């Protein structure tokens, strides 16, 4: 079986978890004999090609005069509506892009219809244009390549998937890694929402990364439950040298939050819980690693609670520093308000760090050897942290069973479930 897969990024050029997940998944699929043609908007040339044939969308020539593309373009104009709410964009970059957009508005139609389009490969202001353009690439590839199934990851690639389906008549599977509700709470971007909904409606099957996400898809998007299947994410096992405890230079125990400091990740609950623990035990240090729009507010809150001497901010951590952070942590906390899956607890567990996760995360569905609390239940969260710091057998148990649990979450197993979904549509 051959799959035409539309993604938005691929390692090593990643800005979020999507690229990592796609990489693990394609490797897993390969083990089940599935061949993958992976399309990314912009290929840099140094991507791992061990599991896939990577297609650079920028290299695909679209012959716009062919009627089929004209027709399709007419159908997808809804995607052109400009939006100023784009995920993963900081305020400074945002302003710059809006200004740029104003300058280029008049010319907007021309790059779209150019024969070759250079993708930025980033989540930028002209994202909607890129998404539309990427759809045309999808249609072109669909008419040129041989494949059995189309698989599209997250809303950015749904129009491409839908276009490919229209041109080739092959079945479409769309994969929900996150919904607009997870990203934006109740203030959803209606354009994004529409693309997500239409993509899922057109799809033959929808794969969600957790039952939590599956429920959102069914309840908030009105998708027929019969075609929505949960396939939990997995992690790639990593062989890395054991980081020595010498990484740790403070004698106090360290409790860590690591992630974007945004509404979705629930940083304020972490601070409130820290306050409760510190009231009882001063020999603990709390670390908030990451950055985001709520960071300044969090710093102010920590100061107001008078816990700043035991509460530290690191700013954005990358690569090796993430591993070092885990190596010096005694407890990892993920208090997310809404987390479709949540890979970071698995990384912590892999580093032998016991974790506390919110029940509002998809990953809670697959883990037993963790402490689960409601994100809003600060008392329970504080209690969980305190217990991990004081009752040694808890940590012993988590180290003993947690590592094993994480090692069993293999992409190879997750891919088997994806293949089952493929087979369903392949037979229809």
């Amino acid at each position, binding site marked *: 079986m051959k799959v035409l897969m539309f993604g938005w990024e691929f390692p090593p050029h990643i800005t979020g978890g999507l690229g990592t997940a796609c990489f693990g998944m394609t490797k897993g699929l390969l083990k089940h004999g599935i061949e993958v043609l992976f399309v990314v908007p912009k290929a840099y040339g140094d991507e791992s090609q061990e599991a896939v044939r990577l297609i650079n969308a920028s290299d695909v020539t679209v012959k716009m005069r062919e009627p089929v593309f004209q027709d399709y373009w007419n159908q997808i104009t809804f995607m052109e509506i400009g939006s100023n709410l784009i995920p993963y964009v900081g305020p400074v970059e945002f302003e710059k892009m809006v200004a740029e957009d104003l300058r280029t508005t008049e010319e907007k139609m021309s790059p779209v219809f150019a024969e070759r389009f250079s993708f930025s490969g980033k989540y930028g202001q002209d994202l909607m244009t890129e998404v539309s353009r990427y759809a045309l690439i999808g249609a072109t590839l669909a008419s040129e390549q041989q494949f059995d199934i189309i698989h599209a990851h997250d809303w950015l690639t749904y129009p491409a998937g839908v276009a490919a389906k229209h041109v080739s008549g092959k079945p479409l599977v769309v994969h929900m890694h996150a919904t607009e509700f997870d990203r934006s709470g109740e203030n959803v971007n209606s354009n994004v929402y529409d693309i997500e909904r239409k993509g899922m409606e057109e799809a033959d099957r929808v794969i969600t990364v957790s039952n939590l996400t599956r429920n959102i898809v069914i309840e908030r998007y009105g998708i027929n439950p019969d075609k929505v299947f949960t396939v939990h994410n997995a992690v790639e096992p990593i062989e890395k040298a054991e980081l020595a405890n010498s990484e740790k230079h403070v004698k106090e125990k360290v409790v860590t939050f690591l992630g974007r400091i945004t509404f979705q990740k629930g940083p304020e609950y972490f601070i409130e819980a820290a306050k409760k623990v510190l009231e009882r035990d001063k020999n603990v240090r709390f670390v908030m690693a990451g950055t985001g729009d709520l960071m300044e507010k969090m710093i102010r809150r920590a100061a107001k609670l008078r816990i700043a001497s035991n509460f530290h901010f690191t700013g954005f951590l990358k690569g090796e520093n993430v591993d070092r952070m885990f190596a010096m942590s005694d407890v990892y906390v993920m208090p997310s308000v809404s987390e479709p899956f949540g890979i970071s607890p698995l990384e912590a567990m892999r580093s032998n760090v016991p974790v506390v996760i919110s029940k509002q995360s998809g990953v809670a569905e697959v883990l037993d050897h963790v402490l689960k609390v409601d994100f809003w239940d600060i008392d329970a969260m504080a209690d969980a942290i305190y*217990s991990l710091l004081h009752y040694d057998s808890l940590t012993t*148990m988590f180290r003993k069973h947690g590592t094993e649990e994480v090692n069993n979450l293999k992409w190879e197993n997750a891919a088997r479930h994806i293949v089952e979904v493929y087979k369903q549509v392949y037979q229809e």
Partner: protein
Amino acid sequence: MLPGTLLKFTNKFIKSNNEKYIVMRSICLYFQVHQPFRLRTYRFFDIGADHYYYDDYQNKHIVKRIAEKCYLPANEILLGLIKEYGADFRVSFSITGTAIEQFKKYTPEVIESFRKLAKTGNVEFLAETYSHSLAAFKNETEFRQQVQQHAQTIEKLFGVKPVAFRNTELVYSNEVADMVYRLGYKVMLTEGAKQVLGWKSPNYLYKSKPHPGLKLLLRNYQLSDDIAFRFSQTNWSEWPLTAEKYLNWLNVIEKKQEVVNIFMDYETFGEHQKAESGIFAFLKALPGTVLRSKKWIFRTPSQIADLLDPVDSLDVPYTISWADEERDMTAWLGNDLQDEAFDTLYSVAATMSDCDDEDLVRDWNYLQCSDHFYYMCTKWFSDGAVHHYFNPYGTPYEAFINYMNVVSDFLIRVKEYEEMRVTRGKPVKQSEKVLKEKPVKPVTTSTVKATKKVAVAEKKTTAKKIANPKAIKKAK
């Protein structure tokens, strides 16, 4: 005359005067009645600040519900059966101290109804640890105290001093046998665990290897669980279970086998098996159906011990219980959480052995309840529908955290009490005999082999190979 002597006398009388009673084989019904004091959600910031640990609302609610659904209607049925069949129908109970306390507090009518049963003289009440504890594993002094406290409670309530013993969860080993025997008990109930019996049948009276004076009744887990676990399982091949069908299973048991021990939680009736499943109708019908066959009669553990001679002695070096497939201790002790919690609590056993602070003694009792450790069992991640049913906590980790918070506060109070006692001039007892700590070992293959060897050695002198009743039934 003491009840035991009276029984012996009647049995001798029966033996010599009434042929039918000798021919008729025994069924021993024993029901366990237990309610723990469930803990409230106790956060670490309560430590040192709030010393009340129990979820009164939940405890009251649960005890009232089970009284209404199980204890009261089931007692009513048993009372009716005793009136109808007289001396031929007898049952035995073991009621924990923590259950009795809660009945007194929330449902005194349950105590009354057990009293009515006691007055018939057809009901034997067994001895056990007051708070359904696992003290036998830690501290003999504590174990003795608990057994004595329980016996006094039962005697005060029902006017009869218990003479047969059952340990918490039917936990048994040579070591436990030793302690029980030295407490003066001559009869004990335990599990007919395969790892101990091998090819032997549970349907005989046995005796303890280290103390041949201690007679053992072994639970027939197949026939017990047919009622306790499988009764309402509609996907069970034998569903629906009727009294007639059950009698047929009893009747295929080889004639030489003298006693069938059917032991279960009393909550089976109306709680684990809901009234809608027909469990009460089954309970009502079974004695009549069985008695009409003229092959079986219902006797209590003490009666059976007096009537029968042990066929063999059992050597049990590793602990057995009536729980799960493994029939061992792993539901309560053995994982890191359970062991830390257990060790932490018993670290103050010496002080508590002669503590005169009523509140501390009460909490000491309630915290020893085996249920708390059961909630921390991690086995159910893979296999425990039953565990999950009984567990008020979402995960064993939550159970552990809550318990440890409570025990942390308890230890602070004990420490304060010790200091207070020192200033009062009464030193803390130091010469406490603490049992050598022994890790609870699962039965290994070598143990099974060892048990089998013993079994083989004894084969010549005892009964022939006995297949289980179900196998015979299926072969037919």
